[in-house]
Each structure stands twice: as structure tokens, then as C-alpha cells.
């Protein structure tokens, strides 16, 4: 018996939930004042939150969960007994538009298992995006997952309709990919990201006539790495992330704690998802992108190359490099202020602005929004000096949660 739309939606949303990305921000500005339906271009909007704390911004579904690949970590691998379904392009288009009109979503995030061949699958996904944009004048956000092996022409067309393209690298090390996802080729995945980067670059250059080519994936590209499915340590993960950012100008690398899946593979036993580790990796990622840290600095405090799970990576770095502290808030440069635990990018910006109106005191920093409980061992102010606090042996203990007594029952 053919499946109903509700049944298909249940299966194909369930299959899509392991993709962390749901961003809908930073694309070209457009709206439906003249024609069509939808708008985009501002900051993204999260329309709902599920009890896993993740936002729903886009209708995140698979076109189909049939797949010819056998990736051990994936619910949709060919050897899994999970129930299969497939949307028709019209069904995806209609779901997207009807959800959009009711203000449930910002747009569509379409991914797919690989059916028949990579080109066939990519062509179907591109067709859905084309129908939304051309037949229905849809101006909302579209994120397409690209199939790395698909032809350059298809990727080229996908970038014209989609705001964002992404290819998941999935595993931080090539040997893990070969072991757990034998049909995937790490070099092909990287080449696909490189080609998207080059296409974006070309689309921003004016031709000799001064004409600007059509925008290509204006919200850039992103990727995802699974954390905890292989033996890679945090240094491996962050080094890979840093190479992806610098090489392919990715907007985001998402880290996804390996999470139990129905009908798991014998090759990969299920674990409790390492959520804290995932959180620390995101913090480290921010330090790489916005705080001027490099991977070696972030992973230096511990010899294992893993991040400290109890305290955040910036605090861990500061505790291991106390010679740089305390910092004089009224004199230090932006680079050094950004390294003070408790000061975020916004706080630093406010400090720099406020300094023009006179020296800052302890109370001013609280008003500005600095987390002074964290920052106070690391800064000096006209009315505050940490004295010996900066170098006390038990400074780390002040920031870690009190050890819990084990329950006897």
C-alpha cells in the first residue's frame, strides 16, 4: 500500500534529524513586495524548538532515505532495516510552501540518500529547488546538500537556486572515513568543497563588461563532523575544521555528537552522545573564528590533545598561560582583551568604545555586560587588582563544579 504524505513526512524527517545545521541567516536580501512569496536576508529566525534544545528554522527533510552507500554511523545506510520512503518533487514543494505560508519555517533544507547514481539524485534535488524558485517565485531560504560525486553542471545549477550548499565531511580523519564509510572518498568531498568555493569566488567577480554574474550560493557553504564515532581527538577535529575554514571559506563547521540510531550497525556500537564534548568543540570553533586563537593554542593545555570538559577552552588556555595576565583593561589592545575569560566579542567592542569617554572601573564593566566573576583574576582596573589571585594554585578549582558525592543508592 502506498504511504500517505503524513507517513512519508514522519520517516523522512526522522531520517534528516542527525544533520545539525539549521541556519537561515546571511543570504542575499530579498522579499515579495513585487512578486512571489517569501523573504530572506536578515538574521535567521528559529520558529520552534524541540525538547532536544535544537531550533527548527527550516523544513529539514530527505527527498528519500533509500541509499546505496553503507556508512556505519548512518540510519539510512543500505544495510539498515529502517523503513524507506520517497517524496515526489511536488510533495516537497507543496509541504515547503504550505508550511512557509503559515509561518512555521524559513525555508527548506533538502538532503537525500543516494539513489541510482549521484547525478540522478542531485538532478532530482536541483529540480525541486528550481520548481520552488521558478514556478512558485519562492524567495525564502533553500539549503541543498550536495552529492560530492555529482557533475559540475548540476552543482553549478544548484548554487543558482540554493542559498547554501553543504557537503558533510562526517569524519575528521581520512582513515576513519575509509573504514566507516567505505563508499565515500575524502578527496572527492574536499574537491567538491573546493569547487563550490571557486564558483562562489567567480560569481563575485565582475566580467570585463562590468556585468555581475548570478549570485552563487550567497549564504556560503557549511559542513558537519560527527564527534565520538571514531578515535579522533579534539586536536584532529579542530585541525580539520581549521583547514576547511581556510581552504574552502566555509561559513560554518557543525559538530554533531554521535547519537544512537535505530537499527545500529554492529561495526559501531552505540554510545551516550558526548554532548559536553560537542559543546566544547563549538566554543573552540568560536575561538578559532572570532578570537584569534589557533588550534595548537586551544589544544595545548592537555597533552592528550582533547579539550577540558569541565571548563571552557578559553579559560583553560588562560589558566595554562597565566604569564599573560592580569591584563590592564584600560590599556590592552583588542587582541589581548579578546583573550580574557569572561569577555566576549561584544564586551570587548563596548570596552573599546567606552574607553574613549574615560577610564573604566569595575562597576562599568559589570554594566557593560562583562562576566566579572570569571574575568576578575585576569584583569586589573583602577579600583581592582587581582593581587596573588592570578597565580594561586586553586584558581582552576574556583571555576569547576564542586565534586559530587557518589550516591549510595
Amino acid at each position, binding site marked *: 500500500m502506498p504511504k500517505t*504524505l*503524513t507517513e512519508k513526512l514522519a*520517516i523522512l*524527517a526522522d531520517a534528516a*534529524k542527525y544533520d545539525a545545521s539549521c541556519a537561515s541567516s546571511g543570504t542575499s536580501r530579498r*522579499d*515579495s*513586495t*513585487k512578486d512571489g*512569496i*517569501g*523573504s530572506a536576508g536578515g538574521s535567521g*529566525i*528559529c520558529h*520552534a*524548538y*524541540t*525538547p*532536544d*534544545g*535544537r531550533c527548527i528554522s527550516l523544513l529539514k*527533510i530527505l527527498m528519500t532515505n533509500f541509499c*546505496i552507500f*553503507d556508512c556505519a554511523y548512518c540510519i539510512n545506510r*543500505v544495510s539498515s*532495516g529502517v523503513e524507506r520512503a520517497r517524496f515526489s518533487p511536488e510533495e516537497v514543494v507543496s509541504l515547503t510552501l*504550505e*508550511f512557509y*505560508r*503559515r*509561518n*512555521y519555517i524559513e525555508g527548506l533544507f533538502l538532503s537525500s540518500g543516494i539513489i541510482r547514481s549521484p547525478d540522478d539524485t542531485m538532478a532530482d534535488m536541483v529540480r525541486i529547488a528550481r520548481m520552488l524558485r521558478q514556478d512558485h*517565485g519562492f524567495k525564502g531560504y533553500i539549503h541543498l546538500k550536495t552529492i560530492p560525486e555529482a557533475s559540475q553542471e548540476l552543482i553549478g545549477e544548484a548554487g543558482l537556486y540554493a542559498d547554501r550548499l553543504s557537503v558533510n565531511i562526517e569524519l575528521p*580523519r581520512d582513515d576513519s572515513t575509509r573504514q566507516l564509510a567505505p*563508499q565515500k572518498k575524502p*578527496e572527492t568531498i*574536499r574537491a567538491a568543497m*573546493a569547487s563550490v*568555493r571557486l564558483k562562489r569566488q567567480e560569481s563575485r567577480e565582475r566580467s570585463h563588461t562590468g556585468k555581475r554574474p548570478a549570485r552563487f550560493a550567497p549564504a556560503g557553504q557549511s559542513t558537519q563532523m560527527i564527534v565520538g564515532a571514531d578515535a579522533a581527538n579534539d586536536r584532529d577535529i579542530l585541525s580539520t575544521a581549521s583547514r576547511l*575554514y*581556510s*581552504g574552502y571559506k566555509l561559513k560554518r563547521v557543525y559538530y554533531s*555528537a554521535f*547519537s*544512537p*540510531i*535505530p*537499527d*545500529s550497525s554492529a561495526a559501531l556500537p*552505540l554510545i*551516550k*552522545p558526548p*554532548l559536553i564534548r560537542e559543546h566544547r568543540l563549538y566554543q573552540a570553533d568560536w575561538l578559532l573564528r572570532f578570537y584569534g586563537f*589557533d588550534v595548537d593554542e586551544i589544544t595545548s593545555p592537555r597533552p592528550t590533545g582533547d579539550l577540558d570538559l569541565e571548563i571552557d577552552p578559553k579559560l583553560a588556555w588562560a589558566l595554562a598561560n597565566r604569564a599573560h595576565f592580569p591584563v590592564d583593561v584600560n590599556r590592552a589592545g583588542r587582541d589581548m582583551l579578546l583573550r580574557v575569560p569572561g569577555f566576549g566579542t561584544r564586551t570587548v567592542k563596548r*570596552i573599546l*568604545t*567606552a574607553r574613549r*569617554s574615560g577610564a*573604566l572601573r569595575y562597576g562599568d564593566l559589570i554594566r*557593560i555586560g562583562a562576566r566579572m566573576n570569571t574575568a576578575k583574576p585576569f584583569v586589573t582596573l583602577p579600583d581592582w587588582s587581582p593581587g596573588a589571585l592570578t597565580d594561586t594554585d586553586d584558581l582552576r578549582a574556583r571555576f569547576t563544579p564542586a565534586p559530587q558525592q557518589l550516591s549510595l543508592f
Partner: protein
Amino acid sequence: MYRVTLPDLGAFDVWRDSARTLASHGVRPEDVLWQRGESADLFDAAPPPSGPGAAQVTATKDFLSLAKSVLCHSASEAPGLLYHALYRHQDDPGALGNPADPLTRKLARLQKAVSRDVHKMHAFVRFREVPSSGNRRAFGAWFEPDHLILEKATPFFAKRFGDMDWTIATPQAVARFEDGALTFHPPAPRPDLPEDASEALWSTYFANIFNPARIHLQAMRSEMPLKYWKNLPETRLIPEMLENAEARVAAMRAALPTTAPARAERILERLQPGPVADLPASLGEAQVAAAHCRRCGLCEAATQTVWGDGDPDAGIMIVGEQPGDQEDLAGRPFVGPAGQVLKEAMAQAELGPVWLTNAVKHFKFRTTGKRRIHQAPNRGEIDHCRWWLDLERRFIKPRLTLALGATAAYALTGDASPLRARRGMVETARDGGPVLVTWHPSFTLRQSGQAAVQARAELVEDLTKLRAMQAQT
């Protein structure tokens, strides 16, 4: 004492006109009573003077946009604080720009509360389809914001849902969008919106996109506060989703791996790569084999193997060091800045088609911040990659070879001595052919002034020499 009454709709214009007049008369903030809507007059207060006063009143664009937001705040002190800021701004224009100033900070906090409320309205309005008389579809929604944001928040919906008619009703006022025109009306009783079939589909989606293995209630509640739940249809499912979550995860863990469906084996067999010959039999085969090379560690970081390119029958092979940033991305040799120099020099030397390649076929680099910085390959990497260079030479059979820089010279001849003494000389390759040694084009890019000019001239000179040698062979 003066009194200004702000209307529920269009409050900003009234506030701005009154504030400008009051400030121009030098009225102190503590002498103005701001109130919203019509309420009993407790104090003996006069309306603001009718005409402008003697003083010139100035305000920045940023302040006006701040005022527009802050005035939406439901706190009764908001209009007064804004007037205080405007009044102070006339004598102390710096204070508004100082994030450590208490009043500035307070206004910033009110503004943040309003913009959060606006953002949540954009997120949490849920339309239901209602019967429509014309050819535009019609939708309606009920929403309860914390602040008086209807006028501020609804232009967003007008831009987004341009091709449909809609009504958003709130306890304070009603916004209506019909045939492209947005209008505001006094509050009406909560409308009774008909059932909408899409709500069931939406709930199905909500329940199935949820991952029961990573419950994080605090994150959900802080981003989707409980006060909004009553108007969000999907939240009705949350208790049930939570109740079953633990059991679902336990079942996943407990389940024994099942046998793969019958089709799996068939499909995977079809995907098995064919047998690979130990030794490629042609240039094309060698290129395919090189794409998956793992002879050294460079393949982990580099994007792809950059194989040679050009005319395989030209009889001339030009060997560089390794692909750079651009070559690594494009998968083709000499497409970056150094390649540009080489191609210009070749044109100057009137050199015809050649085969271009590199001694090492993967890009070696380190990352600093957002950039990839080239690093020279080491002896081991060059030696490993010579397997491919030798194969390439076996199929291309060049009569002449040009080595660009020390790495290429070493890979071709085995001689690692400094380049300066060897430049312009013809040496013998390991496989016996003649190798002319010259600068790497990127060397000419690293030089400055006279040295750069000279290095470039020498590169052209050597290429010209290569052409002359080609004519003789």
C-alpha cells in the same frame, strides 16, 4: 508640570513632536508626565506648549531609531527615559555613545527587550488559513506580545507574505494586510480561527525531527518561553515526546543488529571498485591511480592530487615544485599567481605547447587564521612522489625538461645543491634526458626591486634557451 498622552497606535510621532517642542522650551525631564492611552488625570498638568521654543533641538539618527524601539516597551518609564536622554544630549552629546553610561545602558536594555519580543513575534506567529472571497488566499493569527510592537513587527510580514491577505490580532491592536496595504486597527475580541489541516502535518514534522537521545529542556525553554506555548500548536506534543524519549533510546541500545536487507549485498557488490593494476598502463590510468595516492601524509590535508596538464606530445616537460593554494582548489597545475608569471614568460620566449607538472602532486601548507601558507615539501615527500613523476615521464617521453626551482631540480636529477650556481645550465636527469635548470616563477614573485626584474629576465632567458634547444632536437 506638562503632560503628554501617547496614543496606542502612532505613539512615536506624538512622542517625537512633543519631545522636540518640550526640549526646545528647555523643559526639564522631571517636569514632564508621560502617559499612554486615556487615563484619569491625577496631577494638575498642562499639555506641551503649542509652538517651538527658542532652543535648537538635535538628535542623531541612531537615537531616533533607538527611540522608535524603546517606545514600544510596555514599561511606563520608557517615554520619560527617552526624553531624559534627548534633553541631556543637547549639552552632553557624547553620553549616548558611551556603553558604560548608566542611562545609555538602561535604554539599550529596553531596546534589547523590545527587539527580542519582535523577533519572537516573527518566529511564533502561526497562521491558519481562512476562507477568502477574492483570488488571494487569506490567513489569520492571534498573538500575545509582551510589548506594544505590532506596528514595528508587522511590516516584516507584509514583505514576506506579499501575495496573500492576512490579519494578525493582538490584545493591543489588530494589523490587517489586504491587497498589498498594511493597516492598523483598534483591538477586537480574539478571532475564532477555523481548523487548518497543515497543523497536523506540522506537528508530525515537529515530533519526528526531535532526537530523543539529546534532551536539553533548558535550551528549549529559554528560546521558546512557556508564555508563548498556548498559541503554538506543536507544543501540545511535547509532554508525550518527553515521556517516550528514554524508552526509545533504550530500545535503540538494546536492539541487536539486524541482518541487512537482501538488496544491500547486491547493491554493495555493484559499488565495489574494479581491480586496480599494480602498474598503470597509460597516462590516463596513471592520473586515475594518482587521484587516490596515499604514499605520503600530504593527501590528508590537501584537497586533491594535481596531475600534469598540457600537450603530452609536445616533447617538452616543465616541472614545478608543488601545487599552490589555487592549483589545489582547481585541481590543475599553474593556475595561480606563479602560473601567471610562467605563462607570461613563456609567451615572451615564444615557447609553444608544453606539458606542465609538479615534482610533488599534493599541496603542502600550514593554516594561520583564515589563510593557507605554502610550505616546501621535504626530501621524503619528494622521493615518494617521484613514483608519479617517473611514471609521467615514461608516458610523456619528453625530449627536453625544464626544472623550475630546487625541488624540481632535485626530483629530476637527484642533486640537491643550491640553485644559484646551477641556473641556466643543462644537467642530466636520472632517466638520462637533458634538464635545463631555472628559477621557480614564485621566486621571482618573492624578490623585490632590481632582484625581481633580474630573476624574471633570467627566467625568460632560460625559456628562450629551451626553445632554441627544442629547435635543435
